[in-house]
């Protein structure tokens, strides 16, 4: 499958938990996650995000995050990789779940993005 999902959270447990939920409806979608700082504290780590991007089997990733600074590190990681990263300012759990189920069903990216639109809740902060 050419599309994968990337989850970035400030908390290691959230980053570990969200893919569990998603994988239930998307057994064939490659889902990787980065959560917390390198010291497993609250925050995000560019290095962990880079690793999660590299570990994902897809070369085009739909990326979801929790709070603002995760977005900034995601942007930096996106600039550093050759994979294409689509960044969504949407509610983390709901929108990644929508994306996962639609990817599993083979829905095209444009149609997925249309479904994600009403879930946009951030980006300005």
């Amino acid at each position, binding site marked *: 499958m050419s599309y994968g999902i990337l989850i970035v959270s400030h908390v290691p447990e959230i980053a570990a938990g969200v893919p569990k939920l998603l994988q239930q409806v998307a057994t064939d979608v490659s889902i990787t996650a980065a959560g917390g700082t*390198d010291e497993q*504290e609250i*925050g995000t780590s560019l290095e962990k995000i880079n690793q999660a991007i590299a570990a994902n089997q897809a070369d085009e990733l739909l990326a979801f995050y929790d709070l603002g*600074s995760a977005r900034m590190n995601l*942007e930096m990681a996106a600039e550093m990789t050759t994979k294409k990263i689509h960044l969504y300012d949407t509610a983390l759990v709901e929108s990644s779940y929508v994306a996962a189920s639609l990817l599993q069903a083979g829905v095209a990216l444009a149609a997925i993005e249309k479904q994600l639109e009403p879930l946009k809740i951030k980006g*300005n*902060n």
Partner: protein
Amino acid sequence: MELTLENYLAWMQDFAQKIADKKDYLSDLDSKIGDGDHGNNMARGLKAVSEALATKPADLTSALKVTAMALISKVGGAAGPLYGTAFLEMAKLSSKTVDLSELITAAAAGLQKRGGAQAGDKTMVDVWLPVRDNLKNSQLTSEKIEQAVNSTKQMEAKKGRASYLGERSVGHLDPGAVSSGYLFESMLQTGVIK
């Protein structure tokens, strides 16, 4: 006003010391309108910067670059990518010019691109922009830095974690503005500007 490897190292050493001294104060400011970790995050980042600079980078560009990488990888909070981007932009430009005003201008532009903040959003940008402008006119003083930092107190946050508080963010200094104030105080005190 040229940035050199020597005055840059002195500047960062002084900045790291200030951050270490003010760690608790910065976290305390942050706990009022944010997640309370700015002091600890910055202290961890600047410790990494000091360690990286202790390996004696060959020139100014590499010194700026290792500073950026240490901040990006070690700070953890929003300040990491923000300060990191600022230093990375200076590193990139420093192979062409070492004029301090031009370097800070590039850094401030990078900061705004990364964080998307405008003047008046109650962020570190509210210190970086006046510093940039005053450097251009060779009029940067300690008072002007202090003024810029204090100006964030009455602002309502539009960016960052504090923006979730809306008007309740009014009446508190922005922690990123305060740490940026320390950065530029150090710049003045260590003779980067003569």
